[in-house]
Structure formats: C-alpha cells, structure tokens
C-alpha cells in the first residue's frame, strides 16, 4: 500500500521519459488510420473471447503464477544496485506485487482451489537498463493477461478483484514506460487482451521449473 516519492522535475521543464514528438505524431497517425481500426481494437474483444474455458481457480492460479514472477523479478532487481526512480519503482511495485500474491492465494482458497506453488525463476537482468526493459515487458504483459482472462471469470467478486489488480499493473506499466522513454499507452486507446499462449510466450522463458 505504499505511496512513494516521485523524483520528477517541475512541469515547466518536464521531459516525459524522453518521448519524442515524432513518435507521437506517428502514433497520432496510427490512431486516425484504418490500420488502427482493424488491428488494435477488434483483437481486444476477439482474443479475450477466444480463451478456453477455465474455472475461476484456474484463472486465479494463472494470475498467481504471473504475480509470483513479478514479485520475484522486483526482488531480484533490487540486488542490482538500482538508483533513483528505478530503485523507487522496484521497491514500491515489488511490494505491491507481493500483496497481489498474498491476495490471490487467499482468493484461490476461497473459491475452493489450491494455490499453485511458486516456480523457480531466472531473470536475464544485470543492470538498471536491462531491469527496466524487462519490467516494461512484464508489466505490459500483465495488463494484457488480466484483460484477456477477466471476461472468463465467473464470480463477480473475483472479477472485481482482478480489475482492482489489473489497474495497478497498468499504472506500473505506464510509469516504467515513461521512465524508459516509450509511450505510456503502447496500445493507444484500447489495451489489448492477451491469450494464455501469448502471455506464456513472454513469461514462459523466465520460468525454470515449477
């Protein structure tokens, strides 16, 4: 539940993550174009609905695995001698991912399931830059994972819980993207829903054993 200090300059001299004007012009063009319409919006519905049927416990355990991964990732990152905002984010976000782990473990039990065990992870990070790059990937993947799985959840209570978590993942993702100079809204106006296979393609290589 931590708030954390933001080391940010005043508005007048703000340079948001070094995002260039040209990149936003490009994004604006994409927003206006047919490419955006056909590729960016329809998939968030279609891929969400393409998920195979799962119980809430299954979905929660999938989310739990991702949260284990994120929590372990930030713990590992803090061993790298991070500094500044990156260090603040690793501490604050890591604590929140750990809170997600605990909450989801409890929720799995409440719906009659058994929480999956924490896998062993290996993260290819060795400095601040590699940490931030992978953090961006994992947080943005997390958003897509929850958005993809949530429509398949049966229990309104579990759905609401997932929503309260995905919003946090989205905030993490945006903050990290800004820090590394990429768009805080990489999917523009509509975040994409990822299938389980798509999530595993991003996260799977980091799982050494379960």
């Amino acid at each position, binding site marked *: *539940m931590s*708030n*954390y200090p*933001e080391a*940010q300059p*005043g*508005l007048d001299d*703000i340079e*948001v993550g070094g*995002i*260039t*004007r040209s990149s*936003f012009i490009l994004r*604006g063009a994409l*927003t*206006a174009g047919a490419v*955006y*319409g*056909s590729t960016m*919006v*329809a998939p*968030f*519905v279609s891929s*969400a*609905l393409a998920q195979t049927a799962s119980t809430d416990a299954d979905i929660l355990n999938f989310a739990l695995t991702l949260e284990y991964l994120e929590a372990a990732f930030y713990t590992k990152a803090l061993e790298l001698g991070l500094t500044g905002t990156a260090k603040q984010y690793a501490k*604050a976000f890591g*604590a929140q991912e750990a*809170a997600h782990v*605990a*909450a989801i473990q*409890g*929720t799995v039990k409440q719906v009659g399931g058994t929480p999956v065990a924490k896998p062993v992870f290996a993260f290819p990070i060795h400095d601040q830059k590699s940490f931030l790059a992978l953090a961006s990937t994992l947080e943005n993947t997390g958003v897509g994972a*929850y*958005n993809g799985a*949530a*429509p*398949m959840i049966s229990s*309104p*209570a*579990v*759905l*609401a*819980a997932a*929503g*309260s*978590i995905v*919003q*946090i993942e*989205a*905030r*993490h993702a*945006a*903050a990290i993207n*800004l820090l590394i100079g990429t768009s*805080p*809204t990489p*999917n523009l*106006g*509509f*975040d994409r829903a990822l299938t389980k296979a798509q999530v595993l393609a991003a996260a799977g290589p980091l799982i050494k054993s379960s």
Partner: protein
Amino acid sequence: MPNPGSEESTQQPTGVVERLVRDDTDRKRFLKAVGVGGAASFGAFVLAACGSSSSSSSSATTAASATATAAASTATSSGSPAGDVAILNYALTLEYLETQFYNKVIAAKLFTGAAGSLVKSFGEQEQTHVEAIKAVLTQLGATPVAEPTGKFPVTTPAAVANLAYTVENLGAAAYLGQAAAIQSKSVLAAALSIHSVEARHAATFATLVSKPITPNGAFAAPADMATVLATVKPFLA
C-alpha cells in the same frame, strides 16, 4: 472532478474517489467501511469492489465499428443488455467530459514538448473511447446519450495536470466500479481495455505532478455511479 481545493470540499460532498486520491486517512476509512483491511480481508474487498470505464475518438470510426460489432455480437446471447446499456451510457458521459477537458487543455496550449504530445495523445484516446462506446450502443439497438457540456478550470499547467490526475483516477475508478455488473462478456472486454488505459493516463499525470502512481496502494479502489456523478457534477455547465 471537483477542484481539490479545501474550499470545494467544504461546499459540497466530496466524492469518495476524490478523497481517496488525496487523503490517505480517508482511504483507510473507506477501505475499512467496505471491509478491506489488507490481504487477509481480500475476499470482503472483492465483494465490495466493482468497476468500469470508458472513452473514444471521431477519427476511429473503423475501430469503433469493429468494437461495436464484436461487442454486440455476444451481448444478446450472454446477458441482458439493459443494464449494460445504462453502464455504457454512463461511461459515454464520462468519456465525453474527458474529451472536452483535453480539447480545452490542448486549445489553451498550456503544454509543450513531450508533455504536450502526451496530452494530445490522451485526448485522442478519449475521443476513440467516445466513438467506440457510441458504436457499441448503436449496435445494441440503444440510443447513445446526448453529449453533456462540461466546464473545466484551465489555468496553469500545474493546476491542469493535477486536475487531469484527478479526472483520470476517477475515470479508472468509475470503470472498475462497473466491471462486475456488466453482463455481456464482449462489453466487459471492451470496458476492461479502456479501464487500463485510463489507469495509464492517471499514472502518467502522477509522474508529472509528483503524486502517487497508485493512490490506493496495491489494489485500486472502485467508485460507484452515484459517487462518480456527484464528483462530476461541478464540471457540468
């Protein structure tokens, strides 16, 4: 969203979300009231929580149509659309206001450089939310609500960025507050895809104004319709 000034808060009931955004004591009180004390009472929390969000753009007609078609196709088979229509029109109202807010900020040329690009981009995204939600409503055979007329204090960059932070946090909380009530899986998927974008906007402004990126901690708080509308009321002309 009400002006975060103390004067505002004494003149009218301050919205829960507004208070959550800036007052940790209120946040804890709220969480306690809804049964959230931490991870241990997560179950109670999830029962209290729910949400949704919205927004859209005129240049994204194709996108909106695709959204509408996909969303409407299952709406009739997976649930009663009546409640969904009400939620969508509520979201549309909020997205209209957000779009107007950004348009006014952009017109005032308060932000330049990267911040200016972000504001422009976010404004376009809200417009795409408007268009998508309107299209979904039309596909459902419903009539989109009329666009309200908003009024927003656009003064200094700092004040506007703080207001934007409040607005986006409210939008995210509003969507979260409706998610569990949405019947159609497609409409839900659409709402979720917008919800997390509002959260990204909120986080971006948090970094601009040095406010908490996650004002509610590890679990975002929802806001119900009455709370959101009461909070929005001062911004209706």
